């Protein structure tokens, strides 16, 4: 066991750095603890990803051996309206989904963290959309949106409001998908934020109460700043997930509908090219571009976090 004395006998004017031996000991254990995860992710996720990166420079039907085509896939993609359109749709979907979902989830998490009667009941209700099998969720919403016998338009009709043809109107199709995805992700984000709220020591609130602080003051000055590490996580994951949205569009849109023009996302396009038309190389190239876009966005978030995320 490393002796703490080595630290205390250090001359006081030296910079606050650990003595070499102790630092090496810490680094060694640091590596040992991350080793299983790093090896596992390397083998089962990074290796296949690297293989797919290689495929993006080839033309491959999935059966015969891949033909190297250099940058052809990438130059073709830049001229492909289907791909650029899907990238635009994905961005609009993300802008529509992420801020709305995270903002609602933050308020919801704070509400669900109160000690009031029936909290278990509320928490469960809000989490039900997350728990339900995606295929059932998609099916139910498809019915709810139906222009003739869907519940939503039935209610809108009763209220004398306009009744759009949700999934079959290019002005509303993507918006309809955004609504479902906000609906199904609120509970998910709220649970993460709820567990983040548990990490906030109640002594902060007690001290603030003694000073006569109100609810709003506590929310903005204590809860929100101390919740920022969890909020950062939720934001990063929400961006990554919404750039990769696939299931909802796959389940809710018909494969032949012209509405795909306004709802096709990048991963949907990857699926079409890879698994419907068997252009694996072309599909992999799209995945690589998507990867780079997500990577850049995540790195920007990592960089900006220093300005707003408070770690203890």
């Amino acid at each position, binding site marked *: *066991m490393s002796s*703490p004395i080595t630290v205390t006998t250090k001359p006081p004017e030296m910079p606050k750095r*650990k003595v070499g031996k102790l630092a090496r000991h*810490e*680094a*060694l254990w*640091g590596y040992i*603890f*991350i080793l299983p*995860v*790093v090896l596992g*992710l390397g083998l*089962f996720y990074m290796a*296949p*990803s690297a*293989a*797919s990166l290689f495929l993006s420079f080839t033309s491959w039907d999935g059966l015969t051996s891949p033909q190297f085509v250099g940058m052809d896939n990438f130059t073709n993609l830049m001229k492909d309206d289907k791909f650029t359109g899907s990238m635009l749709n994905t961005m609009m979907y993300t802008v529509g989904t992420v801020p709305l979902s995270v903002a609602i989830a933050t308020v919801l998490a704070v*509400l669900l*963290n109160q*000690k*009031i009667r*029936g909290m278990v009941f509320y*928490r*469960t*209700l*809000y*989490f039900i*959309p*997350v*728990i339900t*099998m*995606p295929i*059932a969720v998609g*099916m*139910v919403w498809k019915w*709810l949106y139906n222009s003739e*016998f869907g*519940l939503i338009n039935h209610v809108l009709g009763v209220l004398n409001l306009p009744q759009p043809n949700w999934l079959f109107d290019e002005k509303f199709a993507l918006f309809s998908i955004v609504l479902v995805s906000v609906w199904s992700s609120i509970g998910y984000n709220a*649970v*993460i934020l709820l*567990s983040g*709220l*548990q*990490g*906030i020591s*109640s002594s902060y609130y007690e001290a603030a109460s003694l000073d006569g602080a109100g609810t709003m003051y506590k929310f903005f000055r204590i809860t929100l700043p101390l919740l920022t590490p969890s909020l*950062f*996580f939720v934001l*990063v*994951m929400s961006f*990554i997930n919404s750039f990769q949205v696939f299931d909802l569009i796959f389940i809710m849109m018909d494969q032949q509908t012209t509405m795909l023009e306004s709802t096709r996302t990048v*991963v949907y396009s*990857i*699926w079409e090219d*890879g698994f419907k038309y068997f252009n694996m190389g072309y599909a992999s190239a799209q*995945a690589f571009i998507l*990867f780079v876009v*997500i*990577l850049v966005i995540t790195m920007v978030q990592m960089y900006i976090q220093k300005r707003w995320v408070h770690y*203890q």
Partner: protein
Amino acid sequence: MNTSTRSGKASRLAVHVLLAAGALLMIMPFLWMISTSFKSFADSMSIPPKWLPVEWHLDNYLRVIQTIDFGTYYLNTVIVTLGRTVGQLVLCSLAAYSFASLRFPFKNAIFLALLAVLMVPSQVVMIPSFVIMREFNWLDTFYVLIVPGIFSAFGTFLLRQFFMTLPKDLEEAAKIDGCSYFRIYWNIYLPLSKAALVSLAIFTILASWNDLLWPLIMTSSEDMRVLSIGISSFQGQHSTDYPLLMAGALMATLPIIILFIFLQRYFIEGIAMNGIKG
């Protein structure tokens, strides 16, 4: 936040009203699922739709069990979910502790590389993964369903973010007492992080319970099938047997709801209750 004493009843009522209104919107589709699961096939297709079944068909639930090998699928799903969840909780928390608290060279670079795993759409890596699993001779076994699922960048990231919010004083004290890093992780970090561990457990259980694409591609024999595959088989090429699909989805969802009700109580045991005041 604390709703105690003064602002008392009024604010509590406001919270109830807000939560109840939101909850109604949230569970509307779910209520429709329940209603549909009791309808006859013809009834489920009627225009305009009927809120409640004309006749209650409890036999839809029986038909689910008769149509697919529900017992086997169920057992497989439980085994896979259990394996992945236990594995992830142990491995992710260890790595997360290291990333949050220990200092070592290239820490941020390695961490970013792990995050990069999350940025590759899973559909793309399916084919290379299939080839790797075939080389391992893991296809159609529990290995392929469990082992790759115990390594998670998501879980490591989630726990690391939580660990970084914990007060550092206890850890410093433990270090001065000569505690090993493993003991600090085991005796300080884990007990203080029940809420985060539970939320990771919930997400892992959920992802593994509803996982469709991976088991669909990696298994082929009837006795390795999982629930999600069974349920999705009710979605037909041309017409879907909605009552059967909804009954099956509800039967699959119910245990997770019960589990959530049980697990969510850990969200109330705040850090103060563990005797730590920051």
